């Protein structure tokens, strides 16, 4: 009979696999391997836990535990395989919420169980020595705070990324709402939760405090996410991802498990760094994102007008173009136009030997890398996808810049010092010799700022759905 304590060595290997996995996920060449390492680490952690339980006490509810593992795996797998590429960001947000919820539920379950056992058995109930009591109760409180906040915030973020929700057949737009007086309320709520954690440890047998923490934390998650919109959403999802790691780490303190502490704090710290990287790409600070409402509520009404062009006109302009830069945005994702965009590039290359490149803004779409994934799906070669800093000097030599469903990321208003877009790095599309906008209307983007680029003489507007307009354009090019 092996001593159960030796089995913990499995967690060490599992933690090492997580570290290597995260490291490798950061480089394009090694990323698939990184993901596999992560999977192996997780598999090892689960197996180690099952073996340990069997050796220590024996697993009693095999059907129950096995059932839970299988049901969860099936649901997760089906959701991941069936999701459309455009729905990926929402799904990541939702999974993230589930992770936070799982940590919070473990904390809640442990708290209720300990309160249920009471002070008669200090090992599994309410601990008798004050140190253990405080450590466990603070960890339970913090895990609940972060976990429930992650759940409610992630679910709201998911609906924000979707744009709205259908209730009884009616489409309701997810609101973006954030008056400045909401900020002190968030801080007060946070301190209220800290106070509740303190009270729950002073009076450890009282479940009311535990439930109050659950309620206030969920409310806090909603209040944090509701003022945030547009290009800031990826940052928030990344921050929530970091938080779900922290929740797992606190849960590790509750049950005294090292692999939870390691994996949780790894995700918490690396997720935070990723959040900062994303903020930097948008020239915003995390505090701005969290406390300064971005767009949404203050949409300007459009007063200027611009005549729309048609596909034939654009095709004539494109005739003989040597350099074309395509700037994709969320509109391309919504209309699933990536295949038509690729077809256009192939046509141009075959007919006029045009060099076509794709300019990828760091926050184009609803997730960083969103455009890369979509264009990859349409088999666009890797070398043609150019990041913003690299492609910007090339715009003056570009015969035609085709903007497919992007707006804020090409808005010259960002160069001024005022307005919600101020300071955000943009694509220098205005420097191209001619510009084509494929867009549904002249309406403002997520940031709520009118785009001067629409009204330039060299700009042609193709009003309509991205996929449809690209199809028309391809047909017109073939007829040239």
């Amino acid at each position, binding site marked *: 009979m092996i001593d159960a304590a030796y089995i913990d060595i499995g967690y060490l290997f599992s933690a090492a696999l997580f570290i290597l*996995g995260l490291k490798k996920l950061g480089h394009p060449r090694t990323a698939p391997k990184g993901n596999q390492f992560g999977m192996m680490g997780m598999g090892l952690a689960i197996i180690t836990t099952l073996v340990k339980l069997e050796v220590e006490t024996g697993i009693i509810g095999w059907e129950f535990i096995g059932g839970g593992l299988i049901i969860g795996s099936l649901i997760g797998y089906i959701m991941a395989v069936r999701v459309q590429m455009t729905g990926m960001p929402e799904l990541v947000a939702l999974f993230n919420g589930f992770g936070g919820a799982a940590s919070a539920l473990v904390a809640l379950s442990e708290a209720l169980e300990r309160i249920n056992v009471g002070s008669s058995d200090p090992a599994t109930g309410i601990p008798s020595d004050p140190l253990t009591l405080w450590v466990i109760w603070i960890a339970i409180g913090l895990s609940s705070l972060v976990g429930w906040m992650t759940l409610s915030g992630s679910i709201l973020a998911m609906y924000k990324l979707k744009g709205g929700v259908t209730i009884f057949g009616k489409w309701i737009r997810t609101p973006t709402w954030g008056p400045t007086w909401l900020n002190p309320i968030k801080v007060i709520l946070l301190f209220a939760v800290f106070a509740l954690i303190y009270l729950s440890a002073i009076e450890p047998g009282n479940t009311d405090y535990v439930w109050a923490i659950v309620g206030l934390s969920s409310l806090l998650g909603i209040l944090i996410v509701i003022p945030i919109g547009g290009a800031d959403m990826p940052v928030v999802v*990344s921050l929530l991802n970091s938080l779900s790691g922290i929740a797992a780490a606190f849960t590790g303190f509750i049950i005294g498990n090292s692999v939870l502490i390691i994996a949780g704090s790894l995700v918490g710290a690396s997720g935070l760094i990723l959040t900062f990287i994303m903020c930097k790409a948008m020239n915003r600070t995390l505090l701005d994102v969290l406390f300064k409402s971005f767009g949404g509520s203050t949409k300007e009404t459009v007063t200027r007008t611009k005549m729309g062009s048609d596909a034939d006109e654009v095709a004539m302009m494109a005739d003989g173009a040597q350099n074309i830069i395509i700037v994709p945005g969320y509109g391309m994702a919504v209309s699933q136009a990536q295949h038509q965009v690729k077809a256009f590039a192939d046509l141009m290359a075959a007919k006029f030997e045009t060099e076509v490149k794709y300019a990828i803004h760091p926050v184009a779409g609803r997730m960083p*890398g969103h455009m890369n994934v979509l264009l990859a799906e349409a088999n666009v070669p890797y070398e043609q996808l150019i990041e913003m800093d690299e492609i910007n000097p090339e715009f003056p030599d570009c015969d035609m810049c085709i903007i497919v469903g992007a707006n804020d990321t090409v808005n010259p208003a960002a160069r001024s010092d005022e307005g919600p877009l101020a300071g955000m790095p943009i694509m220098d599309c205005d420097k191209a010799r001619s510009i084509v906008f494929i867009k549904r209307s002249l309406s403002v983007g997520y940031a709520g700022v009118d785009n001067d680029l629409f009204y330039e003489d060299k700009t042609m507007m193709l009003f309509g759905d991205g996929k449809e307009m690209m199809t028309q354009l391809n047909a017109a090019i073939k007829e040239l």
Partner: protein
Amino acid sequence: MIVEITSLIGSITLFVLTIFLGFELITKVPSLLHTPLMSGANAISGISVVGALILSNVAFNSDGNPLSVWLAFIALILAMINVIGGFAVTNRMLNMIAGRRKGGA
């Protein structure tokens, strides 16, 4: 008491050092990989599945209150959705990137 303090300080040490490690681990990531990295890290945060497993078993062994058992069970399911779904979605995204790289080369 001494044992508890030692193990608590051990846990805190682990926590703090791992946070430093996490900060160092991610330095410069191309925007192409931001979403897969987030999604992969997210799957790893499903590690609370270990907690859910332990609690499910404890709750059963001590025939504790039914609410705790069910909460642990739901936690187990949600954590597994997070883990399997997260890794599968990351894998899908990375496959596309890899597929394109081969196509482009």
